[in-house]
């Protein structure tokens, strides 16, 4: 998909667009360790080895910086020519801890995933930073990419990941007084009670009107009586 490449999208053939990833097993665990050959120019000098670059499907590269060096990594990539932050989102790996990472990266519950885009090089690079559950704080990228503002607010709203030094870290999609962070895996899907299912029929309603008046059930069981 991305034009990363020292191997340009397999030249032609309409199928090439989705088949690009077919030459590497798509994200299998065993394959994580190898030191891949990052095409020249995609990353700044010396990046590939120090940050465990890893080829992921669609021809992109993923980097796994530690939380301490996350901001510096992104700053270095920006200086290298990644002028746009396409996307930033959180992932909660609570029920999938054994995901494929690279050597030396300990999995934590949360991950912040940043997709950077370089218009000049014509490539994308992904940064996945591990965020522990008991201290879910990462530096905000607002100073590097002001466009991160709304995306970080969304990640905060949905996962409770705190972006330090964000100018306005408030909820963005949910109401202010909402409890919990909906996209966390331990946050239930919830359900909307069916309004009429628990309503007794007309006869039963008159019979139970007295008791219903005494103890009004949830769901407005008395409203039609």
């Amino acid at each position, binding site marked *: *998909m991305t*034009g990363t490449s020292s191997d340009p*999208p397999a030249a*032609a053939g*309409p*199928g090439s*667009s*989705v*088949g*690009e*990833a*077919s030459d590497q*097993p*798509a*994200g*299998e665990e065993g394959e994580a360790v190898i030191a891949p050959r990052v095409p020249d120019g995609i990353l700044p000098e010396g990046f590939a080895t120090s940050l465990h670059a890893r080829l*992921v*499907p*669609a021809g*992109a590269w*993923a980097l796994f910086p530690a939380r301490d060096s996350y901001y510096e990594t992104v700053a270095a990539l920006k200086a290298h020519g990644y*002028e*746009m*932050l*396409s*996307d930033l*989102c959180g*992932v909660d790996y609570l029920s*999938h801890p054994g*995901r*494929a990472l690279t050597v030396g990266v300990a999995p934590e519950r949360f991950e912040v*995933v940043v*997709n950077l885009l370089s*218009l000049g090089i*014509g490539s*994308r690079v*992904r940064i996945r930073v591990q965020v522990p559950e008991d201290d879910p704080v990462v530096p905000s990228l*607002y*100073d590097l*990419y*002001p*466009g*991160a*503002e*709304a995306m970080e607010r*969304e990640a905060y709203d*949905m996962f409770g990941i705190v972006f330090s030094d964000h*100018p*306005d870290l*408030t*909820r*963005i*999609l*949910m*109401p*202010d*007084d909402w409890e919990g962070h*909906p*996209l966390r895996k331990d946050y239930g*899907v919830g359900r909307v009670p069916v309004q009429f299912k628990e309503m007794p029929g007309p006869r039963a309603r008159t019979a139970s009107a007295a008791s219903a008046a005494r103890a009004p059930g949830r769901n407005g069981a008395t409203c039609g009586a």
Partner: protein
Amino acid sequence: MRGIAQATSEGAQELGLRSAASTRALLRDEGAVLRGVPEPSGAAGATVLSEDETMIINMGPQHPSTHGVLRLMMELDGETVLRTKPIIGYLHTGMEKTAEELTFVQGATNVTRMDYIAPLSNELVWSLAVESLLAVELPPRAIWIRMLMAELQRVSSHLMWMASNGMDLGSTSMMIYGFREREMVLGFFEKVTGLRMNHNYIRPGGVAADLPDGWEEDVELICHNVLARSEEYDDLLTGQPIFRERLEGTGVITAEQALALSITGPILRSTGVPWDLRRTMPYLAYDEVEFDVLVGTYGDNFDRYAIRLNEIRESISIVRQVLERMPLGDWRVQDLKVTPPPRGRIDESMEALIHHFKVFTEGMRVPEGEAYVAIESPRGEIGCYLVSDGSAKPYRMHIRGPSFVNLQALPVMLHGGLVADAVATISSVDGIMGEVDR
């Protein structure tokens, strides 16, 4: 501040009073993109205003020009907009959470409801993301059908934009014309997919059905009519002095600001950056068709109008090339684990019946991994970040909605302009709230 915050339900998400805001927040609200660099156009002067000189007003969520439930809080000095804050979430339905409960087969029905003006773009990015994890190779006809539909979708989406933009600026005839032409495209979609919107037509593994007989004539008719009528739009709007007065020089954004704010699509191109994913990072078979990437010069509302109008023409040109070169053959992958067997086979083959049952009850298992795939939707880069844990449901699905990100351009574009121009500017961002809130 207190009073406002407590009177409404959004609290801290709202635009606060000037006295309560830090310099940094003020700079952000006033649209200074690069921190510490005050905007040349009087941000420094504006910060010394006291509260009784300015006024905070709400536009939306019910304001007709906000195209849905976008709410803007603006601080005005007289009629000049100083600060703007978009407040969103009124249409939030948790579709990313819903996606985790649906199988990969069902997922397309979910994402298609996000950007309801261009549902096929959503389906396309979702399908490409799933396919990049599956590592399947599509048959050529599926790819070209997808391109045909995606380009017609761009036409219909831009026509819809032309219509609503015309309406916002007081040209009700443009509204009627835009809807009239869009209806032709939607009629074709209905013929192909069975539905005018929310098609669930582009699915992982290909498309749901082959094109119906006689589709060539239908498409040619659409191309002919839309092209001819786009000339009429030129007569009606492009050369009209009042229309130009309203659009030229309003809602200006620079290329530097647009890049810093992650703005994509026609807004980025209006600043002169020739960035169109169809050209720069081709997907499907866009590298095999000829088309122009249109860019503007001034980054104002008129540039965005001109780009969208001409993108309709470019899309028509792509559609005509697809019409000529549409290959024959399968329109979906012949992999029984991914796509169900044709309905006719079920009656005669037990194996087909089992596969059909399995695909629709359990869905397909997608190899573990993660992928970010982005395409050019009518509004900009729509991306799908997909994480699979090897089961039949996505572990995490995130849609990078172009409207969501592009809304961040509003404070910059509105700053220093008049309230009356705000309507034109909001319209030119072309935000679809279903996608903003997801």
